[in-house]
């Protein structure tokens, strides 16, 4: 029943948003809260349609939590957008609900064909959300996103057609085990496009940079893990050392390139987008290493959890800067003085997302790095990527946060979502550290 609730509640909310526009905000907020509670009750669910193992459950809870936070932040952001909107506000909320629903569908299904259908649906819905503001840059970014993402998903569908031929089923749980390198390689490239893996990552900074912060948060914190989960479902049955090496190679290359690309960034949200790419690269290496040491997968999940909340917080605080200071550029704003709550949330979130101790992301990255020690070159490249991203992202954030400036007044709603995100990842980190001690 709870699984159906996760799908039907957002659909119902979307219909209500369109039919009774006045209720769009309340209905979306209620729907997201219902979904958060429903997601806590589906852990371990296994039936003909759904298979929710630990990884799927973690991703599902993340989807619903970020869905709630994004709707909460939308209450502030959508109201203060001054430019003409591409979509009417009621359609914006309807699509946010459908976006969450399609991601949940993809994460829950055991049939890989349906997993793919869910991901394809996320592209359709999110492309319309990216073009919230009516300007040429938004439309070009949406065009690039749909074209690259759909081409990637085309490759993924090709891999599933071959998967069906090789395994005789699309049910990843009962597919058995077959050393299918080509199937896995195509799935890695195909689903990897949605994960933001190099070389088909080019849509990611554009889409994240242009989308409203609430949508950027959902894209970064939940859509990328959903795509990684989809790849994982192909990776498990077709796993062999060659597939694992290939996965690690793509992961570490992505992390390294993303880390290097964070250095020259001049736009706030593009910086955070490259940071997402960096973390997804590290998580992909973790998935590859789980072929040799299954325990590494727990570190991947932990990394994704901390990344989701801290990255959502970063995008929300970025949104506050954009609306309050009317700029997308990274500058010496003196946020701590001018927007104290935003500045503090940004600093804490940046430290968490880059794996600074004592956050749980530090523990997760440490576990992945220690598992990579069997391949010294991988360890060297991965640790280089982690260090570069840490220094670069925190340097940019510190530049934005410290300095002089007059205080700017922002609505309480603007700081609510980032602060809740911070509380969640700080509590999770405390629990993880407490458990380790």
């Amino acid at each position, binding site marked *: 029943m709870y699984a159906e609730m996760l799908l039907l509640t957002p659909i119902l909310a979307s219909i209500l948003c369109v039919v009774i526009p006045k209720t769009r905000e309340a209905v979306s907020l209620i729907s997201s809260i219902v979904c958060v509670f429903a997601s806590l009750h589906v852990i371990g669910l296994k039936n003909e349609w759904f298979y929710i193992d630990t990884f799927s459950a973690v991703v599902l809870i993340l989807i619903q939590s970020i869905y709630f936070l994004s709707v909460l932040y939308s209450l502030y952001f959508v109201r203060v957008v001054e430019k003409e909107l591409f979509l009417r506000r009621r359609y914006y909320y309807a699509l946010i609900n459908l976006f969450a629903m399609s991601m949940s569908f993809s994460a829950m299904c055991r049939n890989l064909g349906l997993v793919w259908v869910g991901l394809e649906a996320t592209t359709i819905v999110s492309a319309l959300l990216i073009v919230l503001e009516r300007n040429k840059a938004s439309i070009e970014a949406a065009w690039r996103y749909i074209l690259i993402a759909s081409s990637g998903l085309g490759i993924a569908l*090709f891999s599933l057609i071959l998967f069906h031929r090789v395994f005789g089923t699309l049910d990843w749980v009962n597919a058995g085990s077959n050393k299918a390198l*080509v199937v896995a390689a195509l799935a890695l490239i195909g689903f990897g496009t949605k994960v933001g893996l190099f070389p088909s990552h*080019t849509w990611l900074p554009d889409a994240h940079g242009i989308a409203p912060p609430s949508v950027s948060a959902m894209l970064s914190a939940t859509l990328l893990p959903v795509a990684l989960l989809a790849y994982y479902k192909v990776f498990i049955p077709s796993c062999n050392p060659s597939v694992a090496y290939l996965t690690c190679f793509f992961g570490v290359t992505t992390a390294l390139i993303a880390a290097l690309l964070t250095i020259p960034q001049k736009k706030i949200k593009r910086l955070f987008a490259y940071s997402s790419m960096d973390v997804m690269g590290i998580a992909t290496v973790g998935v590859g290493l789980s072929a040799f040491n299954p325990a590494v997968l727990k570190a991947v999940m932990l990394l994704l959890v901390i990344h989701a909340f801290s990255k959502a917080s970063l995008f929300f605080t970025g949104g506050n800067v954009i609306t309050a200071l009317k700029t997308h550029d990274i500058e010496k704003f003196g946020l701590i003085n001018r927007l104290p709550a935003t500045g503090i949330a940004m600093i804490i979130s940046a430290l968490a997302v880059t794996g600074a101790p004592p956050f749980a992301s530090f523990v997760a990255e440490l576990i992945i790095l220690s598992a990579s020690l069997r391949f010294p070159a991988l360890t060297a490249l991965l640790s280089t990527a982690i260090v570069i991203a840490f220094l670069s992202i925190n340097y940019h954030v510190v530049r934005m946060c410290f300095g002089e400036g007059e205080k700017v007044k922002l609505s309480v709603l603007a700081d609510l979502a980032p602060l809740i995100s911070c509380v969640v990842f700080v509590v999770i980190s405390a629990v993880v550290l407490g458990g380790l001690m």
Partner: protein
Amino acid sequence: MIEAIVQFIGVLILLTAFEILAQSYIRPMINTVAIQSILLAVIMVITGILENRLDFIILAVLTIAVRGIAIPEVLKKDVKKHGIWVYREVGTRVPSLVIVGLILSIVGYVIYRAAFSVMQGDLPFILFLLGFLVIIAKKNALAQMVGYIVEENALLYAGITISHMPLILEAGIFLDLLALVLAGVILAAEKDYGVLELEELVG
């Protein structure tokens, strides 16, 4: 005999992809992809009858309706509106593109045969690569949209020839939906800002 006909139509489909690569006028490019979709629908009908699969027949009807008629008509209307589309596509080097397409086809064939020596599916695989090439190499949005339809045709072609995959109808519907969204974005963009041309697919 029937298998030979299906193979022959498959080769025709591949030729249409080369025609699209070689074409620098937008309107003939759209007409060619419509013909390609109809040829694919014929294969779907034949396979559907032989395999007794109703979903393949429905897919054939959808293919003709959406990619054979509806989307090409919408795109052609757009061509009429913006005079620029009627003329040559700017900036794409057609002769070298055809050579790249030929090399890609040979490489694709060799890779596919090396990986799956006994499995049918080399034609859709090559068609898919050519669709990908159209998207990457062509610079204007309408030509890229044509490339997307070639890719979609290749995927559905693969779905019915390689594995008789279940859920292929659903996949087809979602691919069509995305194609409609793509067409919608082009129309919206061109209404406000004129022709949509991207120098490269990198932000």
